[in-house]
């Protein structure tokens, strides 16, 4: 488990935070992340966040689920033990396809859904037992925080960064450690 130190600035209003981020960016500071109790419209554009790739992951999980379902059904219902259900043709996969589609669909959804949830937990380090990632409990209540990494802003000293943050309308500036990687 790797831990790293970050500088945090706390705001008591979301508009103040967005204005603060813009002010810091105009001075050439890279703001890594932001914490808020609720989704803020347009925040990801201000931070320049990349679009999530979870859709690609979901597609791969879905395809995996579909393939597994087809292989299993084909082995169980066609190859190993063909059952006579209501006189339906049971010696080929394609003739029985309508009966298999619900299972194929459900298994695709099952794999895609669980895969996405687990990927999300891993990626955001919110698996059960891991310490909370947010810098301060009040970012889940009525405060907002920005996160700045010292090593991404080599142009400035730590003191300079902290002064600039406190000039952007914060209520508090502090340094804290959090996990950046586990496993």
């Amino acid at each position, binding site marked *: 488990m790797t831990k790293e130190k970050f500088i945090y600035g706390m705001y008591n209003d979301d508009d103040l935070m967005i204005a603060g981020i813009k002010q810091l960016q105009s001075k050439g500071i890279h703001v890594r992340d932001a914490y808020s109790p609720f989704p803020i*419209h*347009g925040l*990801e554009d201000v931070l320049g966040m990349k*679009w999530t790739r979870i*859709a690609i992951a979901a597609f791969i999980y879905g395809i995996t689920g579909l393939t597994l379902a087809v292989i299993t059904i084909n082995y169980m219902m066609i190859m190993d033990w063909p059952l006579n259900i*209501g*006189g339906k043709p049971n010696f080929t996969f394609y003739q029985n396809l*309508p*009966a298999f*589609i619900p299972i194929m669909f459900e298994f695709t959804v099952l794999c895609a859904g669980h895969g996405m949830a687990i990927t999300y937990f891993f990626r955001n380090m919110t698996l059960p037992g891991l310490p909370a990632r947010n810098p301060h409990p009040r970012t889940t209540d009525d405060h907002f925080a920005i996160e700045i990494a010292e090593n991404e802003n080599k142009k400035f000293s730590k003191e300079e960064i902290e002064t600039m943050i406190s000039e952007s309308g914060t209520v508090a500036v502090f340094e804290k450690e959090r996990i950046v990687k586990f496993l």
Partner: protein
Amino acid sequence: MDQFTFTDKSKKIFGALILIGIASIAYGMFDSSVTADRIWVSALINGWFFFSIALMATTFIAINSAAQSGWYVALKRVFEAVSLYVPVGAVTLLIVFIASAMHMNHIYHWMDPEAVAHDALLQHKEPYLNIPFWLGRAVVMLGVWTLFTFIYRKKSLQEDAEGGTSIYKKSMVTSAFFLVFFGYTSVVAAWDWFMSIDAHWFSTLYGWYIFSGMWIAGMIMVFLLTHYLMGKGYLKEVNASHIHDLGKFIFGVSFLWTYLFFSQFMLIWYADIPEEVTYYIPRINDYTWSFWSMVLINFLVPMLFLMSKTTKRNRNVLAVVSVIIFFGHWMDIYFIVTPGVLKDQGHIGIVELGMLLGYLGMFLFVVFRELEKAPLMVKNHPLLNESTHHHIN
């Protein structure tokens, strides 16, 4: 540029399309190899297809008014213009229905007194399936739908002139009444006009199946008109997020359609009861390839091409995919009507395609004329500002 101009060039194109339609009807009447029923079947298919698009536009306005949604307001005039084909479409449908009631065609088998006399099941259904009651239902449904379409348009123009929020608030009540009425009558219409073609057969989710099909066709038509208008430099306030939302509707409702199609098909296939399989046997045995390709077009094309966010936001790509699905849903209506009437004698030939173009020309002529009659952007809708700032990722 808020005022749309219906150019002479478009008028000529649509006029030419209408002439193609009339010419193909004339060709069908003089060519002895084309039976009269083929023309009537085409009139029902195209009459319903374009009428349902317009009716869906009215319904969509109602759904969004009742749900107080804001994003569609920038497109409201496009929806209104499409919805105002409802009265014209109602007339095209009534022509077919009255002709059927007068025994000028054989679309509805149960209308033949000779057939009913020898058929216990049709005698049993007679209290519901008899010509006066059936025609009465059709007139009432078409009339009320037209009435609501006019109300929405009138209130919208009144809102432009007067401003304020009272019209907006009242529209929620109007929409609640319309949606309850529509919820029941859209199903009754599906029974009356399409399920009764195969009078012995029945399916409980048929109404939703018809409804989901008309929903996609309606969304596609509104999107294609928006695409055209944006290409001509109108609708400046419409951005990629509105297109994304329309794309999501086209994508999502395609899956609703596939789900309902498959639910109906699988149960009938599994149970294999003679009175139920009568619906699928002519469709699958006589029209194997075209029937299954219709299903695949309506399912696979939206799934493969519209799953990604990028394609839903790019209106040029969305337009190409939409046109394919649009034709796919015309094929859907074709397979709902034709095999029940013409058995294995259905063709997609000059008559069918010509009449499709003719009805399309008439539809677009009416819609473009209505687009011209009012500014393309509503002025005083309370949610207009929300809609022009619509932004989703």
